[in-house]
């Protein structure tokens, strides 16, 4: 009897191939896509109420995007060969094509948008700071000191265009990750056309929740007044996005249960045993139903500011846990059952190996470290700007580009 195996598994299936780090990867890219969509709410969809979090959301997206390739590098048997994905990409492989989507998104969308948004500040800071910091800002100006009002209007128009392109790019960024799983016909837990869409909506949910939490944390740390109208609006969008996400996941579940094809009995058993805690308790119960209930309550009844803040804090924290559990259930769940539908294996998380728990914790903390550095370098707060924040976009005639 093979330890950890119940029933029969093909001999090579017993050991899991994609570990905790591969759970982390879609989680991180999901946060990127979600944070960016929140930023685009103001820029493209004219939801003016969320303006205070615009820059914050962009920096959040960048911090997580920079960390995103790291779990993959740690997972690869030969990370030193990873450049091959760019040199000889196999066009039929979603994984290869994703490398280019990532690069496109990082450079042409995110970095460009951040540069255009912050240019006035960067030029100003290049003139007012000293030492190494000054060199950094000078490099960031790319040699141009042109911050005339006319130039800033052009910046704004181009920035608007970049955001418009950025929205489908963000969809592509995380939709692709869903496709990487959804296109594997060998694995019935993964293979569904719904996968990219479910991934996308859960990404948006987690990204919006993350920015909301970071906004609450940042205002507390900086001892600034929090804009409740902004917070309430973000929470509203979170609620609706989460509702759609939940609907899609329930659709998948109901569809499977109804059709009850060859794989169903095996998968059903797996959910009831190996995946009970992470799927039913964490993902659905604590991670979806409770946050949805909290958010629905705030939509239906007017609570006091302090109570609302507490409810948002609880809802967002649970949401982030729930979406992580969802990634776990997809990636790990997809490898716990045998493709013969006759057995199950177990996943034991290692601690100190390359793909172990400590690496995962480190990788989850790193984006916050980067975020703090970015916030120090490129302050997102209205007080610190040379030209007023709302003035910038209004003067440029947002939407009239």
């Amino acid at each position, binding site marked *: 009897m093979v330890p950890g195996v119940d029933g*029969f*598994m*093909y*001999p*090579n*299936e017993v*050991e899991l*191939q*994609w570990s905790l780090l591969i759970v982390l990867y879609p989680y991180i890219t999901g946060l990127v896509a979600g944070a960016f969509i929140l930023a685009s709410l103001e820029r493209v969809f004219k939801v003016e109420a969320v303006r205070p979090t615009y820059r914050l959301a962009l920096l959040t997206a960048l911090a997580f995007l920079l960390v995103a390739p790291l779990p*993959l590098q740690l*997972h*690869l*048997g*030969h*990370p030193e*060969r*990873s450049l*091959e*994905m760019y040199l*000889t*990409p*196999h066009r*039929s*492989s*979603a*994984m*290869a094509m994703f*490398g280019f989507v990532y690069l496109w998104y990082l450079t042409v969308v995110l970095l460009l948008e951040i540069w255009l948004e912050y240019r006035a500040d960067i030029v100003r800071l290049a003139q007012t700071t000293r030492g190494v910091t000054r060199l950094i800002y000078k490099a960031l100006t790319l*040699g*141009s*000191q042109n911050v005339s009002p006319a130039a800033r209007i052009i910046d704004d128009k181009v920035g608007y265009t970049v955001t418009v392109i950025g929205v489908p790019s963000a969809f592509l960024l995380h939709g692709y990750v869903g496709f*990487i799983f959804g*296109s*594997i*016909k*060998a*694995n019935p837990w993964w293979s569904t056309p719904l996968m990219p869409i479910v991934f996308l909506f859960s990404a948006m949910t987690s990204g919006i929740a993350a920015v909301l939490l970071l906004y609450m944390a940042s205002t507390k740390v900086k001892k600034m007044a929090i804009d409740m109208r902004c917070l309430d609006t973000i929470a509203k969008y979170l609620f609706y996005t989460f509702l759609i996400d939940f609907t899609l996941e329930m659709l998948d579940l109901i569809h499977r249960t109804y059709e009850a094809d060859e794989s169903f009995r095996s998968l059903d058993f797996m959910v009831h045993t190996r995946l009970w805690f992470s799927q039913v308790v964490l993902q659905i119960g604590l991670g979806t139903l409770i946050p949805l209930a909290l958010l629905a309550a705030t939509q239906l009844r007017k609570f006091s500011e302090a109570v609302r803040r507490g409810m948002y804090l609880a809802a967002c924290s649970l949401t982030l846990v729930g979406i992580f559990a969802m990634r776990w259930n997809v990636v790990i769940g*997809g*490898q716990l059952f*045998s*493709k*013969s*539908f*006759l057995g199950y294996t177990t996943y034991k998380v290692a601690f100190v190996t390359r793909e172990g728990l400590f690496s995962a914790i480190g990788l989850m903390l790193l984006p916050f470290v980067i975020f703090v550095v970015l916030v120090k370098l490129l302050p997102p707060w209205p007080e610190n700007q040379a030209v007023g924040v709302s003035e910038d976009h209004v003067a440029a005639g947002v939407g009239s580009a």
Partner: protein
Amino acid sequence: MDITRRDLFTIGGKLLVLASVGATLEQIIGAAAPSDAYKMADHWWGMIIDIDKCIGCGNCVRACSKENGVPKGYFRTWVERYEIEEGKQPRVESPDGAMDGFPPSGRTDVKSFYVPKLCNHCADSPCVQVCPVGATFVSPDGVVLVDESYCLGCRYCVQACPYGCRYLHPDKDTVDKCSLCYHRITQGLTTACCENCPTGARQLVDFKNPQDPVHEFLRKNKVEVLKPYMATGAKVYYKDLDGAVR
């Protein structure tokens, strides 16, 4: 400060130098093409397996392991024993992949048989489809191979294979699997598993060879591939495969 013509010349000049360096390197690093008596275009390899002849001795598993240096606990080929009681789910086992054969089960009241398994060398291989860099591929003579000096070890192909025939080599950190003993069959030998099968249950076949027994075999017998609904173009044909086999 705007871009001047001078700036453009400096940048252009630097690019030109880089380009010529690159071109020289390319000449040096280019690889030589293979050329000898074995012509890939003349062959299209596969295998036929006769379930009724398999005795579950495990010779194939041992031979493959020795011939190809397969690491312990991983399997390029393995044998499964099915025991099917009427109206119930089949009971399947493969103790250490059948490296040491099977301990007698003692059960005589059920339908039981052995099923040898290996890479099916699919013509429309889903594992080749998902490889991001081209480290696994279908050779022109129909064998699915792994380029171990190019493989990243991402294991996407392991996930995509419906048959569970791939694994990550623990020492090389690249993906490994049955190569249909490519190093043997291109020299006129048969695969290690077929060579050592005492009953001839496993036989290497070449679909492009008009004299190969496979043509008569396919014409005269009821044959099946594993998981035909996956439409992978599997080239390992089983004679007398029971419908319960997964």
